């Protein structure tokens, strides 16, 4: 059962990544691209959690955790740049 579900899920998440990347490349606005990058980060978390189950390894967990943290910081910095230019002021 799981051996069916996981490849399908991997495919779905991969497709999600491709769609996000489409928006990322396509734009048209900068916030659109930031949003797409943020979504890509989410997709990456999903992928890692899936891979953890798939490969039966807990070693992917920290990466997921870190993506959650770092993705957030990146998005905040980009938005702040749009709003204020000077991100550390």
């Amino acid at each position: 059962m799981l051996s069916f579900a996981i490849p399908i899920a991997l495919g779905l998440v991969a497709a999600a990544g491709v769609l996000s990347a489409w928006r990322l490349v396509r734009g048209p606005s900068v916030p659109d691209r930031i949003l797409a990058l943020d979504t890509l980060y989410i997709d990456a978390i999903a992928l890692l959690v899936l891979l953890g189950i798939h490969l039966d390894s807990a070693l992917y967990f920290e990466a997921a955790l870190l993506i959650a943290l770092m993705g957030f910081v990146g998005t905040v910095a980009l938005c702040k740049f749009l709003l204020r230019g000077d991100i550390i002021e």
Partner: protein
Amino acid sequence: MQDLLLSLLILVGALFTFIGSLGLVRLPDFYTRLHAPTKATTLGVGSLLVASALYFSTRGAGISLHEVLVTLFLFITAPVSAHLLARAALHLRLKSLAPVPGEEGEGADGGRG
């Protein structure tokens, strides 16, 4: 049974992740697109994390709950990201399907590029 539940959770999670990104592509303007990733974040990753917790708790030694942490992080951070993105879009006066209060007919798409 447990496998079934796991598979279900995994598929639901992957599906919602996918739908989130699909919305990103399909929805018509930035403000509407902004809603899409929330699904991926909440239900999508949420389901997958539950699946993971379930999987490792039943397989390894002892229960595995650290997945809760990722959820916690996401639930604190994702809304802030969305909020800031909306603010940025408002600042840039991105084209909006819905009229923006205090911004009459200035549909300039200044954030382009």
